[in-house]
């Protein structure tokens, strides 16, 4: 009896110490990060029975019209363009499909560990526009940021999970090579000097992703057979998922459709134009 009671009290003391000294505010997340940071197990190798998921992202409704970007803030940028440049927020292709949609396998690949490509993905800055506008990459893969402009940029990704950075890149500077270590749905990238510049980086844990282009289609190749959840993410219209079953050496299709009535970004988020307007309207 005494023994057990002793043990209980001792537990209390120890736990009391543990509870009382919980450490500083920002250390709470650390252990989870450590365990999730490096996937364990052998690297996945294709077995020869892989299949393909294809699909198309269509757009229904009227595309929003954007006013041309004013590049007043930097004459170097303005000089690079002969014709007006429009924001790439919503780009509807001629065939009624939606461009710049990031499509990837959201779930179904758990427990597999995919080799990180040696080749970096590339993000270019040309005419003070990010190219590409939407970019997919694998966690721990390198991203190479190059500049083709004669003005200084700064590359400022604003991740919520990964570590934030903000680095200056003057004209003719060496490429900036960095990486994101953890998968993260959408990382906006901005240049603080050219407020209209915006790119979106999607970091996933595997190589099965695509970005829709001029025909609005995508293709996820080399996918092992299985049941998957495929997600399409658009910066303005949010995400949409579909389930597919892929047989060995099979193909499956997943078509997505977005329309302007769909869930937008939260309305409280006033985008930059209003901000710029607001700041000048005041005074």
């Amino acid at each position, binding site marked *: 009896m005494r023994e057990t009671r002793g043990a209980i009290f001792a537990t209390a003391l120890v736990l009391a110490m543990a509870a009382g000294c919980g450490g500083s505010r920002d250390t709470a997340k650390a252990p989870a990060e450590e365990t999730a940071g490096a996937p364990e197990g052998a690297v996945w190798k294709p077995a020869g029975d892989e299949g393909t998921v294809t699909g198309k992202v269509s757009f229904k409704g009227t595309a929003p019209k954007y006013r041309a970007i004013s590049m007043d803030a930097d004459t170097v940028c303005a000089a690079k363009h002969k014709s007006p440049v429009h924001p790439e927020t919503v780009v509807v292709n001629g065939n009624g499909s939606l461009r710049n949609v990031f499509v990837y396998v959201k779930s179904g690949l758990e427990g597999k560990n995919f080799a990180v490509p040696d080749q970096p993905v590339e993000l270019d800055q040309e005419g003070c526009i990010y190219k590409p506008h939407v970019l997919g990459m694998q966690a721990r893969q390198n991203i190479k940021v190059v500049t083709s402009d004669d003005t200084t940029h700064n590359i400022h990704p604003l991740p919520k999970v990964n570590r934030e950075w903000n680095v200056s890149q003057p004209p003719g500077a060496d490429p900036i090579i960095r990486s994101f270590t953890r998968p993260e749905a959408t990382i906006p990238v901005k240049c603080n000097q050219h407020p209209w510049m915006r790119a979106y980086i999607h970091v996933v844990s595997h190589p099965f992703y695509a970005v829709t282009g001029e025909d609005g289609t995508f293709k996820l190749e080399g996918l092992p057979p299985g049941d998957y959840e495929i997600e399409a993410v658009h910066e303005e219209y949010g995400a949409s998922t579909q389930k597919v079953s892929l047989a060995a050496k099979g193909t499956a299709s997943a078509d997505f459709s977005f329309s302007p009535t769909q869930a937008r970004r939260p309305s409280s988020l006033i985008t930059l134009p209003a*901000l710029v307007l607001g700041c000048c309207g005041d005074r």
Partner: protein
Amino acid sequence: MATDNNHDAEPAGTAPDPIADRSLSGPLLIATILLFGSLLWALYDELFAERPWKRYQEQFVRTYSAFLEKLGPRQAAAEKTVRSSPAFQKIEAQLQSAEREASPRIREIEKELAGIRERLAILKNPFQDTRARIAVLTYELDHAGAGRAKDAIRAEIREVRKGPFRIEGLDSGGKRVALTFDEMEKQFGDLKSREAALNTELARITAPLRDLRRQRSEYLADNLAGLSPQQIEGLQRANRDSKIEIRQIHVEEAGLVDRCESCHLGIRQSVTLTAADMGNPVFVSHPNRTLLAIHDPTRFGCSPCHNGNGLATSSVQKAHGNYRHWLWPLFPKENVEAGCLQCHFGDRVLDYAPVLERGRDLFEGKGCIGCHRYEGFDRPTEQLNEVRKEAQSLETRQKEARLEAEQEVRKGDAAESNEEAQKHYARAESLRVTASSIDARLESLEQRAKYLMQDQKKVGPNLKDVRLKLRKEWIPVWLRDPQAFRPGTKMPKFRLAEEEVRALSAFIWQSGLDGPAPPRQAPGNAAAGKELFETRGCLACHSIGQPAVGGEFAANLSRLGEKAGYDYIVRWIHNPRERTRPYCPHEKRDLGPEDYAKHGQPFVFDLQNSRCPNDGHQLQVQNLTVMPSLRLSDQEARDVASYLLSLRTNASYADGVAWMDDPRMAERGRQLASRYGCGSCHEIRGLEDAPRIGTELTKEASKPMEQLDFGLLEHKAKDEGWYTHKGFFERKLRDPAIYDQGREKAPEERLRMPNIALTRDDVRALNTFLLGSVDSPFYGKFNSIPAQFRYIPSDRRKDIQEGWWLVKKYNCMGCHTVQIGQPSVLSGLPRYQDPDWKEQLPPTLVQEGARVNPDWLARFLANPAISQAETNRNGIRTYLKARMPTFSFSPNEIRVLVRFFQALADQPVLHLAEEMQPLNSQERLLARALFSSEGAPCLKCHLVGDANRDRFATAPNFLAARERLKPAWTARWMLEPQAISPGTAMPSGLFRQDGGRWVFAGPTPASFKEYKGDHVQLLVRYMFQLTAEEQRQLLQKLPTAPAKPAGAAAGMR
């Protein structure tokens, strides 16, 4: 057999001998068994039962050695990994090549040294013997008497020196060598100096090797997480050799003996032990090594923080102090931070005590301080009372002195002799001087009172304004159940009968001021108001909606439209400090225009006009609210008010409230308001000086249990095991009326403490705070904590302590990050997650003291607009939508805040700006060229004072740098802004290292080819010497941006 019988039969005739006949062996046996039994029992008790720690120690030694056994190979493998890392291998390779290079010579030297040492050993004895002999002879020579005797000794010395000394083994041949003393001395000396030379050379050659070896072991230590295999082996040895014995910490000067480690053996082990490792939570390591390192147990012991009976070893219960007569039971695990409070009494914010901090936040924020005095809280009110008392006594003294002076004069007039008259006059004179010198002291007290009145705040709103501000019918609704109307509000629920609600409503309504009413306002634009409300920073303190979005520091404004009047709210938003009438604490009433008119003065009262027109005393000219002015324009105030008043539900209110004008009810209400202490949190006419009605809580947990009134629940509490301070507080906080249960009490005798909306965590936090509120925290020869234990800093840490009270008082952390890692309320709002809004967050203040000049900071805190004319803006970051408000800090508070930021960044309080080396004209041209070059991004984001360019600005104007910033910080900021303010719009990597200097990373203008200086320093000097004229010149060099209407701004859709 027969003989025996005979023998037996013989004494049978006589009376039996009681001694011889009765055998005592039975009782003796029993006694022996008992004695032996009790001996065994005593031994058992002594060795086992009363020494439970022995078993703990045995168990610990067992499990710990098993644990180390497992850890050993793991750490060996880890060490192997480190050893195979490229960096380690590199050091290893360097070491090996260095060793290879040096080893032939080392071997040579060592060989030669060995030879020398051998020869020295052979020579040493004969040489030293002979030298000693000569020394003796020389001494004799000095003391010999006659010349002949001296000569004889001289001859002997010569003889001795001549030798010859036959020495074997000195040469390699093994032959004997014959030497004279002189030869011997020379050889010995030569060998010695050769040995020294070789040793020096050896040290020189091996120095780099030693260096590399040190590097190698340092690398190993730095990169091996945990202990090295050798260290583990050491621990294993120590564990094996450990004795079963009491382990105690004895702090003599505190009279403290703590034996906790007799069972908790893992607390200070150098390996981190978890309950899983050790199979028993008793043996874990202390969970916070940093904390333990600050509070070294050999100096502080255990019980000063954790409580318990550190001396007791006979049972867990006793050791933890959980028995009847021990006044300091171990703090329960969820309230463990209570232990911090005893020594850190003055610290509002502690690094490792978030629960305790939350407890204090609640004590202040929920208004507990309104009724319960607690030392350190609401200091302005207490200081104000002291100042007023002192002023009063001074005034009395002054009056007396004047009176006495008059009497002395009269005495002098009536005096018989001139001498006597002179004496009286002189005395009268000095009394008059004394009286007038009191004026100076009164004046300074008056000023202190003015500042303190400015600092004084009340928890709740000013109820003198109810008639101007509130809807009449709403008041009883609110009083019935404030939580129902506004969940989470700090207004608690008083357990009022309907009759009491009505009486209180009537009193509050009738005690309200009738005017002057705030001016009538035209309606505003609610949509614009919503935008302003959400972006100006209101949400740092206020929240909207359910579940609430925004800060919990101030009210949730969701239903404001149901209670408040428009004109009043407009005035409030415009300037919450603006009062309807100034209050004179001297006359104890609110002054009106008529008082001013009597003296021909306009009805104007503010911080500059704060004296009473009747008697010159300081008036309370502000509302006692912490809410600052956001310096909104009249139109903006109307917009925000329109938006807020649009927030309402469809609740309906009874119109029949004519009884609220019944004076009899008001009289009853006044009694109730005094009884419930309404005047502690609110300003109410007639209750301005109402005392706190609750018990003081500063040392509440030291109250003997008998003084805590459990009512009829005492037996239940004892049965259920919550007859403790914790049990009492916890239940009282959850249900303040609980100890009235079952008692027959008249309504006016019932417990008054209202029901406060508290979550479980809130109760825990408040309980932690209360449990730590003790007088004598631990036993020993002191009645209270020994002075050396208390944290009473007198240096910059004191400034930090004092500053936190203000930072909390005004909720600076709602907008700013003040502490590393502390998120502001704004930064957590959905709006600020957007990439564009992120840079709209107010600046971090973590390094504020290092960043800004304290003189500037003082000016800024007094007037964040910086300008007297243009107030509807931020002074520095004009581009921020969130507005740094005007808090109307008194000079006292500004001083505390400035010192706080200086101290937080380790800066001296007195800042003397270093003289900036002036730029010569060539340097100015260089800096100007760099600043305006295409590659340099500075002017794209920083304000330049040109409306067209400033449309895009997201950073302050360089013109402000000279007065505002510190040059050293500015240079650090330019090099690595992300390290100072993570996520800032200012990019890193603007400069690169080039030799010993920093140069701009981008293309530099041609003129820089010849420039050999540091670019960062050049730009800092330029910034700090920038003039408006120079800025104009700078702008002229920039390509002009075409001015376009704002509508065509970037990305407009």
